[in-house]
């Protein structure tokens, strides 16, 4: 296949970004959405073609690098290349990214219609898609990092899209700073890895580090710092970067706030694609994590499990529908993370890896669907708050059905997509780590509960009261409903894809087993969650309040997101600002500025005191001159002979 096809996949969105960003506002304001969508469509078709070609060619999937351009060479082995890496997960990801992006592009044609900065919005979307594709296709660790930052920037731009809203600006800054902070870890990790393994190229990196007895692997394991090997530090630091991007506890605080952006953006960036970049990164380096640093993989597992249950508990108490979805995203990414964490390398023990990627795929479908559905609802009622909704099932039947499908999918009810992927994750956890398995089981019950709490509160509960200021009363037209229907198909059907055949740790196809007795417990818990939510929220009643009151302290803590934001504020405002910021400011104001002021003041004082010399009397000057000349004459004649 010609290389140009690979290159075109990320570069078509880039062309869209440049075109719309530079000329959109002036020349084709109303057509910009269609231009962006069209480019995206071509990119999607190419991606599917490439992926189909790759997966259908053989049954063993090699790691190819069809495109490679050496960009910056540091030493003989270390160089920053721009390349395209072709392996099962990157091929799966380009399909997911282009597909969700295409759906969001189409959806935004309706959702963002009439916005002032419509072309800008589409150019940012295209920039994001380009960066994300570059990230997943990267063949070099540093290339990943470059695109990693680029997706961060596009996320920042899109969260702050409504830049006249102070909360959106604050959220954009928060997202950028928190992820940037984590990315510092990533960068240091890259440097450590580059230093110990003497390469940045993924293929060489994995090959040298994982082959037993290689020089780099043994030297990396030998050099230790604070009791852990250099490689352990490297992978742990890289995981910090991944945890920041994927909103893992305790770096998750930016994700709920990021919901200030337009809803389609949340669907694309903060649900389906960008936030799974951390999972993708760990999966990309999985052989190293698994073979060289199993301790770090344990951390990955625990962080994922804690994030999953933590976010699920918070999600049960929130009332902003987008925030519920944000916490749900965090929880599901936690699933993907701990699935990687409990996985081993090779054969059956690699099930967690397959399951994680499988869940990433199905999650992209149903979470994008949930967000887009929520967008339709928000468009309709002009509010994010669950309390303003209720009884919408007859007003918006298409949204209702698709939302229900997505909820069933995420709750893990067969035969929807989430059931299959979650089942594999639970199986992997059961084989890998029993405590994590139980956490995951509880979380899956909670997931079903909060998703159906959301569903019943939006579509059932009290009858909908039309308020006066919402004029248009339609679901948003076919252009917004079409992506919902397509994604609903994905959410319902994508579970039947035999993922283990394509994506596995060692290239040997993995048969997905189906254990009936094993699935009973999670499904039963999911159903229990659904019935619980139904009992509490289907009709308006006072049971939720009673329940909340009986759980008083715990409910309050969960409602306030376990005060994590407050802890961060305390640490930054009270400790860092006072102990580091203020002394630094004092030093700057007094010492640094003081030196500059001293120079200025001295000059002023000196000139003030000798100002009188310039009297304007020529004869006075002449006297000074005369005595000066005499003085010099004496000096030269008698002293310095």
């Amino acid at each position, binding site marked *: 296949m010609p290389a140009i096809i690979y290159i075109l996949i990320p570069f078509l969105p880039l062309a869209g970004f440049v075109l719309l960003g530079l000329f959109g506002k002036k020349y084709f304001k109303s057509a910009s959405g269609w231009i962006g969508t069209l480019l995206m469509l071509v990119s999607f078709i190419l991606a599917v073609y490439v992926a189909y070609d790759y997966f259908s060619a053989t049954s063993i999937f090699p790691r190819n690098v069809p495109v490679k351009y050496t960009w910056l060479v540091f030493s003989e082995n270390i160089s920053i290349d721009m390349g395209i890496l072709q392996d099962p997960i990157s091929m799966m990801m380009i399909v997911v990214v282009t597909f969700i992006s295409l759906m969001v592009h189409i959806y935004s044609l309706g959702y963002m219609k009439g916005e002032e900065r419509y072309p800008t919005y589409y150019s940012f979307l295209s920039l994001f898609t380009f960066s994300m594709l570059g990230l997943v296709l990267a063949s070099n660790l540093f290339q990943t990092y470059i695109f990693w930052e680029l997706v961060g920037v596009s996320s920042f731009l899109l969260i702050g899209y409504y830049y006249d809203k102070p909360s959106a600006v604050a959220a954009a800054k928060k997202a950028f700073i928190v992820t940037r902070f984590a990315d510092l870890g990533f960068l240091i990790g890259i440097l450590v890895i580059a230093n110990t393994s003497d390469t940045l190229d993924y293929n060489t990196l994995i090959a040298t580090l994982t082959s037993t007895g290689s020089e780099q692997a043994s030297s990396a394991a030998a050099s230790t710092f604070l009791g852990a090997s250099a490689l352990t530090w490297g992978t742990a630091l890289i995981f910090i970067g991944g945890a920041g991007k994927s909103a893992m506890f305790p770096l998750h605080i930016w994700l709920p706030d990021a919901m200030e952006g337009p809803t389609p953006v949340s669907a694309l960036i903060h649900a389906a694609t960008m936030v799974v970049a951390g999972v993708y990164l760990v999966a990309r380096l999985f052989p190293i994590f698994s073979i060289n640093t199993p301790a770090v993989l344990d951390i990955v597992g625990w962080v994922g499990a804690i994030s999953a249950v933590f976010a699920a508990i918070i999600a049960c108490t929130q009332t902003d529908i987008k925030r519920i979805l944000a916490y749900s995203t965090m929880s599901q990414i936690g699933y993907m993370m701990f699935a990687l964490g409990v996985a081993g390398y090779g054969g059956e023990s690699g099930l967690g890896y397959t399951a994680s990627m499988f869940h990433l795929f199905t999650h992209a479908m149903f979470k994008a669907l949930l967000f887009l559905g929520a967008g339709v609802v928000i468009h309709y009622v002009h509010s994010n708050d669950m309390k303003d909704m209720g009884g919408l099932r007859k007003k918006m039947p298409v949204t209702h059905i698709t939302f229900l499908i997505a909820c069933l999918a995420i709750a893990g009810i067969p035969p929807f997509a989430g059931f299959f992927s979650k089942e594999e994750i639970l199986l992997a956890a059961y084989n890998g780590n029993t405590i994590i398995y139980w956490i995951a089981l509880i979380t899956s019950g909670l997931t079903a509960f909060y998703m159906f709490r959301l569903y019943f509160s939006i579509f059932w509960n009290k009858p909908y009261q039309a308020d006066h200021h919402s004029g248009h009363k339609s679901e948003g037209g076919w252009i917004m409903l079409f992506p919902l229907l397509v994604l609903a198909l994905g959410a319902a059907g994508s579970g039947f894809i035999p993922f283990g055949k394509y994506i596995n740790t060692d290239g040997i196809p993995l048969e997905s087993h189906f254990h009936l007795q094993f699935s009973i417990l999670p499904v039963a818990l999911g159903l229990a969650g659904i019935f619980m939510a139904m009992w509490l929220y289907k009709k308006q009643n006072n049971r939720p309040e009673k329940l909340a009151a009986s759980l008083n302290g715990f409910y309050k803590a969960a409602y306030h997101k376990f005060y994590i934001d407050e802890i961060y504020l305390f640490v930054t405002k009270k400790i860092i600002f006072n102990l580091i910021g203020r002394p630094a400011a004092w030093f700057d104001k007094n010492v640094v500025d003081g030196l500059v002021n001293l120079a200025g003041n001295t000059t002023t004082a000196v000139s003030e005191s000798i100002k009188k010399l*310039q*009297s*304007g*009397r*020529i*004869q006075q000057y*002449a*006297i000074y001159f*005369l005595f000066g000349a005499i003085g010099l004459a004496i000096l030269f004649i008698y002293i310095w002979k």
Partner: protein
Amino acid sequence: MQPGLYHILFISTALFFIGVYGFLTRKNLVTMLMSIELVLNSVNLNFIAFNKYLWPHKMDGLFFTLFIIAIAAAEAAVAIAIIINLYRSHNSINVENAEELKY
């Protein structure tokens, strides 16, 4: 008695200091200009005297003197122009009234 180098140097030094004294004490700008001419002429005398007594075969000193005379003429023209302008604006050629030129 033939006048020697020292005689002439004596005259030239006297002339120089008379000029300096005049420049420092006179308030009238024209008189000050005349004092400067005295200083210049004392220099001229020096050049000629040294040329004649030390290097009689050369003419460098003479040329210097000619140059200085030419420059002095030019300088006098410029100075007179300045003085006339000052007189027009201040109605005086007293050097003390020119103090504000420092601004």
